[in-house]
């Protein structure tokens, strides 16, 4: 079987039916339409929109980005148009036939829940991804995703607020990623996605200051891929809900690695900046790999990693 077109690329991400396993990651794909000059969005499984808050938010002052070895450090903060503008201005601009997952981040659980409520029942919103990598102000800035109890409360709150497929995006800044995935499954999440950017720091030795105005930022890009692969493999072994793999995916081979490690779908992030057409090429490339290896259904690749303790 060497015809990529004949490969069944469909996957189900916790109730979100995807044409293929390749999504664009939140915060790296804008609200979708920015990519139309470069890419037919229908070639993707779909995309996760920029994370939304209840109110529109401005971000951090510049500098917001810095380059690191094979990585990108960013501190954009909560900048977004707000949930209402998303629903009424951004969503309608997205071409039909494109699967859209909304992403939510907030500083308090009830606000998370409120944004989820507003998104529920909106046509075109196929599911909600909860960005748990936000500092919980009351707990002195620890991320929701770093504390099992906080995370459980967050998932519970979101679960109560919406019947939509609920994907919890885990923070990688933890000791035990498997435990966090289990918490989400226990609270009724339909899937988990990981990893978000890793907390990191870059310094300018001439100014003696952090490069980013926000001091700390999130590290993304190829540099973190081996860390993300490890966490995805650990999470996928720990839960029975689907896992969405994210981190440093540059091409089809990288996406296949995540599938083999147990990811049902993947998200492409930073690479969209470097090459706005790359996500489509990755979708095609995975099918080509499957065809080359006589794999009829991409779901047959999920968790097919060999030579590992059962």
């Amino acid at each position, binding site marked *: 079987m060497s015809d990529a077109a004949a490969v069944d690329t469909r996957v189900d991400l916790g109730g979100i039916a995807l044409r293929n396993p390749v999504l664009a990651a939140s915060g790296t794909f804008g609200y979708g339409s920015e990519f139309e000059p470069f890419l037919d969005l229908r070639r993707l499984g779909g995309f996760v929109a920029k994370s939304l808050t209840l109110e529109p938010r401005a971000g951090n*002052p*510049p500098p*917001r980005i810095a380059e690191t070895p094979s990585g990108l450090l960013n501190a954009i903060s909560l900048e977004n148009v707000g949930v209402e503008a998303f629903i009424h201005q951004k969503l309608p601009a997205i071409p039909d036939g494109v699967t859209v997952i909304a992403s939510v981040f907030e500083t308090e659980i009830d606000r998370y829940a409120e944004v989820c409520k507003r998104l529920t029942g909106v046509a075109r919103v196929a599911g909600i991804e909860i960005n748990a990598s936000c500092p919980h102000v009351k707990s002195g800035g620890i991320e929701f995703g770093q504390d099992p109890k906080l995370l459980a409360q967050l998932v519970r709150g979101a679960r109560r607020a919406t019947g939509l497929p609920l994907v919890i995006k885990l923070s990688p800044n933890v000791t035990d990623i498997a435990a966090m995935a289990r918490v989400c499954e226990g609270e009724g999440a339909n899937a988990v996605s990981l990893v978000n950017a890793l907390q990191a720091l870059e310094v300018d030795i001439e100014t003696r200051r952090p490069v980013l*105005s926000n001091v700390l930022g999130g590290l993304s890009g*190829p540099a973190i891929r081996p860390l993300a692969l490890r966490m995805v493999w650990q999470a996928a072994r720990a839960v029975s809900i689907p896992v969405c793999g994210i981190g440093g995916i540059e091409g089809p081979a990288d996406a296949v690695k995540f599938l083999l490690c147990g990811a049902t779908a993947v998200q492409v992030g930073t690479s969209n900046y470097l090459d706005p057409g790359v996500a489509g090429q990755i979708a095609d490339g995975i099918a080509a790999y499957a065809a080359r290896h006589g794999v009829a259904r991409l779901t047959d690749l999920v968790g097919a990693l060999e030579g590992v303790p059962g």
Partner: protein
Amino acid sequence: MADALQPAGAAATRGLPTPVRTEAEVLACQPEGGANRRLVLRVPGWPGFAPGQFAMLSPGALGGAPRSDPLLPRPMAVYRAPGGDGEVEILFKVTGRGTRLLADALPGQRVRFVGPLGLAFADPEPEERAILVAGGTGIASLYALARRLARAGGPGVEVLLGARSGADLMGRDDFAALDVRLHTATEDGSEGSRGLVTALLEAALQEGAPARVYACGPTAMMRRVAELAAARDRPCVVSLENAMACGFGVCLGCAAPLRGGGFALVCRDGPVLDAAAVDWERMP
């Protein structure tokens, strides 16, 4: 914030070509005085551009095998696109890793190219003189505008170029070949008047006739230009050179602070912005 209204009148938003994402072929990469280079590319499907627009070039993958370091593409103004065959010229200065690698580009090699991006310079009003002020790499961002205005005729085009020394003045001969009034200033006095290009601007602004100022260069220079223009209340637009990751409005990395709060995205709401709208205090 991301959706700040794009400053009125600063930039032309209509009829801009749809950008392409492609592998451009290197036709030549020549020394251009000082640390400057002239890169000539063939860009498949090149849709044309408007003065002020730029492209993202990825130095990382140049050569035999893809690499992820350096990771980010580099923003470069479209200097000129002679002929309709997708030939695109970039003038750049070797300032760091990315441009140093770009300087190694060999004919036949391919480099990822996304562009043209951003908004374009708006023309002056019919009665306005155009005063173009550029320093360092900013010179490359103003050549296409100078060329168009020179050909359009009108009350006249004044071009003021500044650099550390004569050798650093990129594209000087190209400007000289245009029907513009060209003045240069160098810090070491090796060419034109000794000192900063902003001194030339002060002189140029003496003339009473209505004028519109276009500026591109180091932040400190653009800020000074903005002040001088404001003092004589001449409309002034600047082309900012913030660091960028994507170039088309999705990473939110290129934010420039605006007066009265919020940010403009230099790649999407600019790079051409109304100088009066920029909060120069909070510029990095």
